[in-house]
C-alpha cells in the first residue's frame, strides 16, 4: 500500500484552499461560510444516497 503524499489532495480540499485564500485576501468570511455549507450539503446528499441504496 502506498502512502498518499500531502500534495495529493481531493477536489473538495482544493476548493477549500482556494476559498480560504479568497477569504483571506478579501478579508471576508463569506467564502468560508459557503464552503462549510457546501460540505454540509455534500454530507446530506451522501447520506440520502446511502439511505436509498439501503432500502
Amino acid at each position: 500500500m502506498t502512502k498518499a503524499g500531502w500534495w495529493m489532495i481531493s477536489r473538495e480540499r482544493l476548493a477549500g484552499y482556494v476559498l480560504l485564500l479568497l477569504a483571506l485576501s478579501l478579508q471576508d468570511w463569506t467564502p468560508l461560510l459557503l464552503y462549510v455549507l457546501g460540505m454540509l450539503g455534500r454530507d446530506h446528499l451522501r447520506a440520502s444516497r446511502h439511505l436509498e441504496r439501503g432500502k
Partner: protein
Amino acid sequence: MQRLADVQAVRDNNFNLLRFLAALLVIFSHSYPLALGNSSSEPLRQWLGVTYGSLAVDAFFVISGYLVLQSWQRQQLLLNFCRARVFRVLPALAGVLLFSILLGGYFSSLSLPSYLLHEETWKYFYKNLLMLKTEYRLPGVFADLPYPEVINGSLWTLRYEMKMYLGLAVLGLLGLLSGRGFRVFLLVYLGWYVLASWALHSRPDLDISAEMLRLSLCFVLGAACAHYARYLFLRLDVLLGLLLMAWLSVGSPLFQSLAALCIAYGVLYLAYVPKGWLLHFNRLGDYSYGLYLFAFPIQQALKAVWPGLQPWPMFVYAALLTLLCAIVSWHLIEKPALAYAQRRNAASRARLSQAAALS
C-alpha cells in the same frame, strides 16, 4: 506534576467555575464605563493598560479554543459539530435579544406600538441573531445615560466566536487539525500573527483588526494546548514564570502575546489542578454564558432607574439580578437546547455506524 493529556478526559474540572468568574469580571469591568461614562478609571486599566473585562474575554476564548478543538475531534460529522455550536450559542442569544427588546420597550422614549413596529427594533433582533453586524441601538432607549445608546455592548465578541468556529471547521475539513497538518497551520498562523502585530503598530493604513488578532491568538493557544496535551505539564513554577514574564513586559509590544500565553496556561492549570470542594460548583448549571449575555442591558437599566449609581454597587446589584436571569436562561433555554442537540447528534452517530456496518 500532572500532564495535561492525563487529566484532559476528566469531566470533573473547574471550567464552569472559571467561566463563571470570568463572566463576573466582565460585569465588574463594565460597571466603570456604564456608571461613569468612561473606562479610564477601571482599576486594571490604570495599572496595566488593559481591563479586567478584556482579560476575562481572553480567558473565554482560550477555554473555547481548548474545548471546541476537542469537540471537533470527538464529533464524527460536520453536521454534528455545527449543530453543537449553533445550539450552544443561538438559543440564549435569541433569549437575550428578546429580553432586551422588552426591556427597551419600558425605557424607550417612543410609544410602545411605534417602538415595537420601528424598523431598528427588528434590525436589532435579526442582525444580532444572524451575526451579520453587531447592532447596539434600540430606538429611543438609554439615550441619556453616561454610556449612551448601547443596549448590549457584550455582543461584539459573539461574532468573533462564531468566526473562530467557522475557521476551525474549515481547518478541520482541510485536514489541518490533526497530525502534521496542525503543525503547518500553527506555523502559518504564528507567522501571520507576528506580521499582523507589527503592521498594527507601524502600518495603520492596513486596517488590521486588533480584536481579531488578540482573540484569535487566545483561541489558537487554547486549541494548541488541546492538540499538544501530551507534551504539556501543569506546573505552578511554570505558571509563576509566565506571570513574571507578562509582568515584566507591561507597556511593551510583547505584553499582549505574553499575557495571552499566561492566561492560556493559567486557565488550564486552574481548570485541572485545584480539586476538592471547588468541584462542587459543577453541580450547579453553567450560568456563565447567561451572565455574560444578560448583564449589560441590566446594568444600563439600573443606571437609568438610579442615575447616581456608582461602579461597585452597580456591580453587586447587576451581578445578583443577572444571576437570576442566567439561572432562568440555563434551565429554560440553554440546557434543553443542548440536550436536544446531543440527542440529535447521538442519533446521527448511530445512523453513521449503522451505515458503516451495512457497507
